[in-house]
């Protein structure tokens, strides 16, 4: 029976599908406008109008409904309250909306405007567009009344009925109440505890290990540990139980007592497990089979007083299926929860939270085969759950199962949040035998995540993608760029498990206006002055190629940490993800040397890591570009070197014969000089490589080690630690020369300029200027992480042999750096993001999204000379 509402106030769940029900003329649209935002209302009339230019065109009703349903579905998917403004007087039409609400796990609410026929008819008469027959309203009212009493049975969670204009006038507010599962405002820190199953002693031990004080005898919490959060506030930690407190173990009542006390005092949270739910059924006198450990609980409870049993009933009955915590970043549910069910309320959600998903098959142990929903989980929230005992708690796609089978002789595990640390205590004994061996199906040395990561899903990468980065804005990867990246990744790139980082492109300094120069350090100094950077590091620009080197201490580390098996101890790859060495043997020999250097420099111990990712320059450039040097650079040199002397000879002869060709002759003499300089410039790179000793590697950034990145360190720190490694293998590794420049100090700035002049006069490529700290921001956001100042002669192999002729230079100076710099910052942010994700052990797809994005951005059209 619908509840007549004659109150000034009603409340509905904040995420609900609200159906307005009532005949034409009942005032639904006016009602909707009064209590809801315009965007929340989907009106069937408006939908008719949108597709037929006539809001009263009944002929398009079916299409209009389809449109309304489509819009509603999108809103509900996005978690937005939605109001359906249509007559909805027939139960068939309401059934469709109930179905939609179920599909999106939101609560359906009906607000009935059951106003007298006279009122409706009178109103419609004042509206010239509603000139349908007089029989329509009585018919609608009779349809409405026929089913009014059964609305709850139809599936509406709440039904409100307004029967008169007075009822409508009396209603002042409709408030929205958050769902019980919404605890976004609770930011923790939490200690999330796996399935206890009556293991009281282990629970106490675990809580104590976590820093809680427990009165074991009275099952009460005495004290809770505190943690100072990132924001500087000290907060009390709170245990969160993933459910299955009872059954199988030796002391289910004590466990219940302790948890009930804690939850009752607001000192802990708890979600229900399937065993808890079954116990409730038994307590409620329902028919349940006393097996799977319930028989033990029942026996243990036989000694307890009836008040206690009563309080257990109240406790379990009051448990909320799951919690969404910490601004939506954390979800706790007994058996886990898919993204589209998080924060929603429906029977299906509750069912999933307690039992998870099964495939419908029965395994060899006679148990239903559980479908691992986490395999497909791509949500942003971390999901912590239990239910399925596993030998070890392992991350998979931002989810973790922390039921480590304590009652079966395993351990009781807690996940410290936000620290993501696992703490566990071993079971004192085995209390029960599992029907299915724990860890059944685990067959390789790789972790669950690594097995899953074996093959990435193309849907995560193709098409338009938006990547959230912590150091910059969201970065959009356009579809056409993804197309290019997919081809490069598939045809040329190394195993994506190795490719945790790609370096950003680097912009040159502001264009110089000094005579004969396109680039000069002053341009860089100017840039950093404008961005307010006070200290700058100038590093020698090596004449090599950018290389990313990942080195593991041994192949076991490669397997455990990178999931790479049988591909050596590491990799050296280019900025487009290609293997640097065509010869695998040479690569591994190279990496073995690096490994030995890291070992003897004490790097692994100092950094408490078994691997490192370094951003480097690998020399010589010719190692990668031999064909280019011969077919392009040398070829141009030969053509010019032979043609120009012939031209000047002809001009000289003409001038001797008094032909006025003096100006031309001068021009061609200087062209000849430019070409000579050009040949000298490319010859700097012709460094034959045959053996390992012919290579030199100059690392300049320590990008990441286990659990850590080094973006908070300044470049002198990077240089100092790298120097130590280089000293351990001077035949292979090269410490980069650098200078620190104090911006605004004329002496210091001049020294940098002179150093650049010296480097480039000696045939060097130039230098790279970086803000002193790795990550620097100004008011507009990130500052360029590095800008290059290339030497006058080096630029010949970029801009062409004769770029510096005055008539050429004047035109080349109009180059724009904006696109290149924007690209550099986006790639920089993506690169760091990928590494942060890798060190925090996010799924490979999350890391790959970043490197794939960088590769995609690289296909944006930018002047290749920059």
């Amino acid at each position, binding site marked *: 029976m619908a509840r007549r509402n004659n109150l000034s106030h009603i409340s509905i769940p904040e995420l609900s599908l609200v159906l307005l029900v009532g005949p034409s003329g009942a005032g639904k649209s006016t009602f909707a406008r009064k209590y809801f935002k315009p965007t929340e209302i989907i009106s069937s009339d408006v939908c008719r109008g949108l597709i037929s230019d006539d809001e009263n065109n009944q002929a398009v009703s079916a299409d209009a409904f389809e449109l309304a349903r489509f819009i509603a579905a999108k809103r509900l998917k996005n978690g937005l309250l939605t109001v359906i403004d249509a007559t909805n007087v027939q139960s068939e039409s309401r059934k469709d909306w109930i179905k939609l609400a179920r599909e999106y796990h939101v609560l359906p609410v009906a607000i009935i405007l059951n106003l007298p026929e006279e009122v409706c008819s009178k109103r419609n008469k004042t509206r010239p567009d509603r000139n349908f027959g007089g029989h329509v309203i009585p018919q609608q009212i009779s349809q409405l009344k026929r089913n009014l009493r059964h609305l709850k049975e139809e599936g509406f969670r709440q039904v409100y009925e307004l029967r008169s204009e007075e009822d409508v006038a009396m209603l002042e507010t409709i408030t929205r109440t958050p769902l019980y599962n919404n605890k976004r405002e609770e930011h923790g820190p939490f200690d999330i505890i796996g399935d206890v199953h009556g293991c009281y002693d282990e629970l106490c031990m675990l809580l104590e290990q976590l820093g809680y004080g427990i009165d074991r005898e009275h099952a009460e919490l005495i004290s809770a540990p505190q943690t100072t959060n990132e924001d500087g506030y000290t907060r009390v930690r709170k245990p969160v139980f993933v459910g299955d407190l009872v059954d199988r173990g030796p002391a289910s009542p004590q466990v219940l007592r302790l948890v009930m006390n804690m939850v009752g005092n607001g000192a802990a949270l708890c979600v229900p497990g399937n065993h808890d739910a079954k116990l409730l059924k038994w307590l409620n006198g329902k028919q349940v089979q006393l097996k799977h450990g319930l028989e033990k609980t029942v026996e243990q409870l036989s000694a307890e007083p009836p008040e206690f049993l009563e309080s257990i009933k109240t406790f379990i009955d009051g448990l909320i299926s799951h919690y969404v915590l910490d601004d939506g970043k954390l979800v706790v549910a007994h058996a886990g929860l898919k993204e589209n069910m998080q924060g929603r309320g429906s029977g299906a959600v509750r069912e999933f939270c307690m039992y998870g998903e099964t495939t419908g098959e029965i395994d060899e142990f006679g148990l239903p085969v559980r479908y691992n929903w986490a395999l497909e989980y791509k949500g942003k929230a971390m999901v912590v759950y239990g239910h399925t005992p596993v030998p070890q708690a392992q991350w998979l796609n931002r989810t973790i199962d922390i039921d480590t089978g304590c009652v079966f002789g395993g351990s009781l595990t807690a996940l410290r949040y936000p620290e993501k640390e696992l703490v566990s205590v071993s079971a004192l004994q085995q209390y029960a035998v599992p029907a299915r061996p724990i860890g059944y199906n685990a067959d390789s040395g790789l972790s669950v995540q690594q097995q899953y990561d074996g093959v990435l899903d193309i849907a995560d990468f193709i098409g338009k993608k938006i990547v959230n980065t912590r150091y910059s804005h969201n970065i959009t990867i356009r579809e056409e760029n993804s197309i290019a990246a997919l081809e490069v990744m598939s045809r040329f790139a190394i195993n994506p498990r190795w490719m945790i980082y790609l370096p950003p492109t680097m912009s040159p300094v502001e264009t110089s206006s000094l005579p004969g120069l396109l680039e000069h350090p002053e341009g860089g100094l100017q840039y950093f002055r404008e961005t307010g950077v006070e200290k700058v590091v100038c590093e020698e620009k090596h004449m090599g190629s950018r290389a990313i080197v990942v080195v593991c201490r041994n192949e076991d580390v490669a397997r455990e940490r990178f999931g790479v098996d049988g591909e050596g101890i590491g990799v050296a790859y280019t900025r487009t993800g290609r293997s640097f060495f065509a010869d695998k043997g040479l690569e591994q020999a190279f990496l073995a040397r690096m490994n030995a250097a890291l070992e003897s420099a004490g790097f692994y111990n100092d950094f408490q890591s078994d691997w490192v990712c370094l951003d480097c320059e690998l020399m010589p450039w010719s190692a990668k570009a031999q064909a280019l040097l011969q077919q392009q650079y040398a070829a141009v040199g030969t*053509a010019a070197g032979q043609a120009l002397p012939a031209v000047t000879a002809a001009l000289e002869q003409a001038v001797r014969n008094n032909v006025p060709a003096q100006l031309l002759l001068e021009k061609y003499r200087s062209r000849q000089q430019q070409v000579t300089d050009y040949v000298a410039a490319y010859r700097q790179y012709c460094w034959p490589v045959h053996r390992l000793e012919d290579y030199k590697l100059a690392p300049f950034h320590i990008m990441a080690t286990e659990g850590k990145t080094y973006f908070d360190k300044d470049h002198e720190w990077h240089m100092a630690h790298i120097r130590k490694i280089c000293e351990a293998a001077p035949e292979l590794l090269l410490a980069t020369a650098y200078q620190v420049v104090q911006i605004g100090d004329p002496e210091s700035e001049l020294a940098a300029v002179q150093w650049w002049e010296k480097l480039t006069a000696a045939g060097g490529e130039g230098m790279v200027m970086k803000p002193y700290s790795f990550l620097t921001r100004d008011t507009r956001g990130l500052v360029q992480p590095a800008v290059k100042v290339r030497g006058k002669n080096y630029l010949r192999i970029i801009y062409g042999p004769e770029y510096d002729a005055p008539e050429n230079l004047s035109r080349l100076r109009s180059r724009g750096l904006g696109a290149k710099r924007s690209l550099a910052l986006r790639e920089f942010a993506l690169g760091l993001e990928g590494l942060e994700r890798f060190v925090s052990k996010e799924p490979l797809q999350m890391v790959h999204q970043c490197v794939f994005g960088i590769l995609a951005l690289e296909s944006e059209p930018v002047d290749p000379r920059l």
Partner: protein
Amino acid sequence: MLLTITTTRNPATDLGYLLHKHPAKVQTFPLTAGDVHVFYPEATAEKCTAALLLDLDPVRLTRKSGPGGNDFALEAYVNDRPYVASSFMSAAISQAYSSAMNGRCKDKPELVDVAFPLEVSLSVLPVNGGEPLLRSLFEPLGYEVDVQAFPLDTQYPEWGQSRYYQVTLKNTLPLWMLLSQLYVLIPVCDNDKHYFVGSHEIEKLMEKGRGWLEDHPANELIVRRYMKHLGPLTREALGLIMKDEATPEEVEEIPEPAEKIRLHDLRLQTVRDLLLEQQVSSVADLGCGEGKLLRLLTEKSVFTRILGMDVSYRSLEIAGEKLKLDRMTDRQRKRLELIQGSLLYKDKRLSGFDAATLVEVIEHLDPPRLAAMEKVVFEYARPSLVIITTVNAEYNIKYESLTAGTFRHSDHRFEWTRPEFEAWATEVAGRFGYTVTFRPLGEWDDAVGAPSQLALFTIDTA
């Protein structure tokens, strides 16, 4: 960049009249990407030399590398064009010497058809095909050819010779003919053109080739290169020039061995026949390239659903054009879908097909990445039938042009012998629950087998 023409026919300064250029001046004419200067290093009655200096502006000269061109991003800025005689030189000739080339001489018309002893010097001429090709172009026309070659870099003799030559040509002929021949043959040596080649180019060739191209023994090559290897234009021009001779059907720079063409067709035919025999109705061609197999499949109505997947978007565009996707009826269109995808990423779009084919695809994957492909095909897409073909490395010794240890294609990452392929396929089949059988593809040789090999995987039904 420099073309000089010298004559010693007294009075040699007649050259000035023929060229319409005064020997005492430097004259400059504009080109699209620079200037051309004409001056005389020497002008006496005994000997007169006219120099044509091509002065290209490197900044204005941005040369885009087209599809299939080299992937050197800076090619537009660091290139040989300003320093060589190329189609730009032809443009300069027609700009500066147009009257002379067209056989007009205002002051001394009687000189036009006089055969002069002429000496031409070109600095420098790029020649694809080297000295033999150069000689084969000019010697049949009566030129005495003197060639000087240069190493790529004198400091690195091991890099070998460049394709640039200092060329001297001597011949006695009317100036207009010399200019016409240079106009045509310079870009032919270079084997490139800086502008779009359309049907207008045929008219130019007919006009400039009049009187010498018809009987030139290398006229096929000349026409082909002049038309930038555009098949239809080449055929049309050849038809016009050699009116009575038969036109060759396929025109390619280096004709592919006939057996190779047949082999690929045979592979595709075999794959289709197998699919027909196995009575499948939906097929995913993974690595469909330009859609040759797809076309064979669309011809048979039993294939009701056909998917072509390739990692190269460009190939798919070509496939779409070849299959005339945009002109298909809705019903035909629904049968066939082309998608960009990769064998290294699992892909829901590949599920639900009866059969998947990978024709000469796996050898393009780096061996460490095969594991991903195996899962993508056999675990995730999981069709009932999989056909994989790959080259048979044992057969390579039968290709004379193939040096031992090299692959048949530059993008091949490996080539397997029959035992290697069979071992791999058998292990994969066992791991994923398939049964595999093998068959040779192509002409059988008792010692080394067939040029290609095929594995047919059928899923084990539980």
